[in-house]
């Protein structure tokens, strides 16, 4: 290797056909995913065995390896993302989460009247844990040797999360005593029902806006060198997306209902034709209809609504995430997500689940390769900010434990 091609991988792919106002110095960086299903399968199986025989103690090491695999195979402009977390630190966080999780399980099963104590503790700590998990994840991710950062502050984390807890608090404080000895006053229950209905309705109406606040906090805190991203999505866009998703859900429901009706009618017709009109025979078929509807719904939801939501939210949030000199672009189509989901589901069923790691890799490829970055100026001249002390291991464990992640 001579000094000339040292920078070969650093070359950026310049898009020729792009006619949008592109300053001469702005460049497009494509995202490529080079992970392989068969390799991830081997990683997955070995990790799984080790996790099982160590009674899950190996889990943080498996997780570190999995994250490293996915990030090292994500090439942004030809350079991979690095993953640098120390698995032993993740192990400490995991032990803490394990203790908390088991205590929560024990309390909620054995002393259910005190379930609210760990629940309240979790609620109070949750925004801080969430932020810590984002910090940990970003700080341990690098591109071209420079660590990413998460710059969202603690106060904003609480402000973004707090509205989600308010309905619960309102219920707790307005709920009439459920003491069986206490005299039941119908008016109290009516008031409570009214409050309950109102708060639930208000929450549903506000949900898109609250969700947007969460996303604004997340996508407004990503930092690289001197850059800090922000999310430029308006409430109108957010409500528009929610309405569309709601519409698609109704369509799926309607389709599931019609399909089930069709199947039931065909089956009923056949039964009547071949078996004559046995008494009670029709009743049995009628009883099956709801099950067929539920089954069709459960099949159609992940297949149709899932890809729709995944593609539209990724596009809305990443296409509108930008900093001063970096802009993201996301062109994830419903069709590609639908295709990959359908194939994954079929193959997972056929292989009794063994296709699962391949499915993960395929999905990651479709999602990641739909994205690109536009960078203004010469990135090589940028300078990283001083790194701060490493902390927030617990947050990372908590984030994964409860299924929170960066969203990509």
């Amino acid at each position, binding site marked *: *290797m*001579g*000094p000339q091609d*040292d*920078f*070969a*991988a*650093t070359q950026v792919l310049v898009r020729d056909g792009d006619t949008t106002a592109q300053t001469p110095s702005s460049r497009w960086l494509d995202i490529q995913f*080079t*992970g*392989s299903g068969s*390799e991830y*399968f*081997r*990683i997955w*199986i*070995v990790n*799984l*065995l080790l*996790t*099982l*025989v160590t009674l*899950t103690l190996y*889990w943080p090491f498996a997780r570190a*390896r999995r994250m*490293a*695999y996915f990030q*090292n*195979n994500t*090439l942004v402009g030809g*350079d*991979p993302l*690095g993953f*640098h977390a120390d698995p032993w630190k993740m192990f400490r966080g995991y032990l803490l989460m394990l203790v908390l999780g088991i205590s929560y399980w024990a309390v909620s*099963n*054995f*002393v*259910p*009247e005190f379930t609210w104590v760990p629940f309240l503790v979790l609620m109070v700590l949750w925004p801080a844990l969430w932020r810590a998990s984002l910090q940990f994840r970003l700080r341990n991710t*690098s*591109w*071209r*040797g*420079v660590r990413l950062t998460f710059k969202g502050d603690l106060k904003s984390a609480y402000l973004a999360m707090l509205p989600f807890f308010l309905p619960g608090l309102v219920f707790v404080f307005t709920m009439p005593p459920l003491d*069986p000895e206490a005299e039941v006053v119908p008016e109290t229950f009516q008031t409570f029902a009214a409050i309950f209905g109102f708060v639930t309705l208000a929450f549903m109406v506000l949900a898109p806006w609250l969700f947007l606040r969460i996303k604004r906090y997340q996508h407004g805190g990503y930092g690289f*060198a001197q850059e800090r991203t922000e999310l430029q999505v308006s409430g109108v866009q957010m409500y528009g997306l929610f309405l569309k998703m709601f519409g698609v859900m109704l369509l799926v429901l309607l389709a599931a209902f019609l399909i089930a009706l069709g199947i039931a009618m065909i089956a009923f017709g056949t039964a009547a034709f071949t078996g004559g009109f046995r008494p*009670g025979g029709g*009743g049995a078929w009628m009883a099956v209809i709801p099950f067929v509807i539920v089954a069709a719904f*459960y099949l159609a939801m*992940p297949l149709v609504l899932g890809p729709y939501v995944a593609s539209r939210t990724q596009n809305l949030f990443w296409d509108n995430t930008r900093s001063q000199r970096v802009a993201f672009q996301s062109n994830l189509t419903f069709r590609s997500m639908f295709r990959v989901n359908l194939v994954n589901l079929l193959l997972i069923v056929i292989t009794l*689940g063994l296709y*699962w790691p391949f499915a993960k890799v395929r999905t990651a490829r479709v999602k990641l390769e739909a994205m690109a970055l536009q960078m203004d100026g010469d*990135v*090589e*001249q*940028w*300078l*990283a900010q001083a*790194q701060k002390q490493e902390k927030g291991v617990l947050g990372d464990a908590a984030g994964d434990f409860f*299924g929170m992640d960066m969203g990509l």
Partner: protein
Amino acid sequence: MQPGGPLVTRWFDGQHPRARSVRVRIEGDELLMHTGEEVRHFPLKEVRWPERRSHGQRQTDLPDGGMIQHADAAEWDQWWLAQGLPESAVVGWMQSWRATLASMAGTVVFLAVAWVWGVPWLSQTLAHAVPETLEARIGKQSMEQMDSLFLEPSELPEAQQADLRRRFETVVQRAYPAGDAPAWQLSFHKSEILGANAFALPGGYIVMTDELVELLNDQPDAIVGILAHELGHVQHRDGLDMLVRASLVSALVGVVLGDASGFIATVPATLATQSYSRDAERRADAHAAEMLHAAGISPAVMAVFFERMVEEEGDGAEGAAQGEGAADEEEGASLPIAISSHPDHGERIRFFREWGR
């Protein structure tokens, strides 16, 4: 490139997103990096090497926050392996299909062992480790919950209740001559939702519905047999046992399936829990048969009960006819055996008819 010789690669200093060409080699317990201007020394112990894989670039973390990034994975691996540095065995396994298949077999064996011995042993141990006072508390709470949701006061005549209670007490005394029967507390309730049903809760609470007593009005021995079955659940602490088992099973399924979709994950967990539930029912049936036998009643009296249940369900009495047993059953007996919480009636009739033969 000679094995063991220096490797030309790219280095990032951690401050600038800018690659620089460097040469690296290993000498003694140090990694030497020639930047062209100077030679930097890093102790090998503090360098974090990448794991060997077939895909992706190689990134090596240096102790000063810098990073060596090599795009040609094969070239890097060749250089690195030539240095004779120790590598984790796990990395080798993940590159070998043979080791992968062995891990798969190991996983299957582990899950099978956990299924047959591990989970039952652990849940029994934990269930019996729960102090009785705590178990009584849990039972009391579930009882109150059941009471407010499904149960109404019994409409059976006091005399009939007292008679059944007395019969059962006699059987318990004969079956436990040493007086070591678990504590139990029997109550009758009317329940249109549960229909003909009986269940046991942690802490020895046994509930039988008026509807079940009416179904077996002429067969008090069969009623006593059902109560003996419930006492079997109490003695084995099946309520707590199933609680622990269900949690263990879902934890196990969670580990195996990872972040697979929630609905998909509930299917194996439910099937497994129901299978354990059928085992518990068979154990309680055996307990009932032994108790009846000890009290001088033929276990075959129980066959009548199941025959009537079959009849009841055959009549198409929707939802009203449920088997006896744990409180959580929603499904009718017509469900295939794999998803039912109870063994099928035919099997249980045979069990009680042929008991002791």
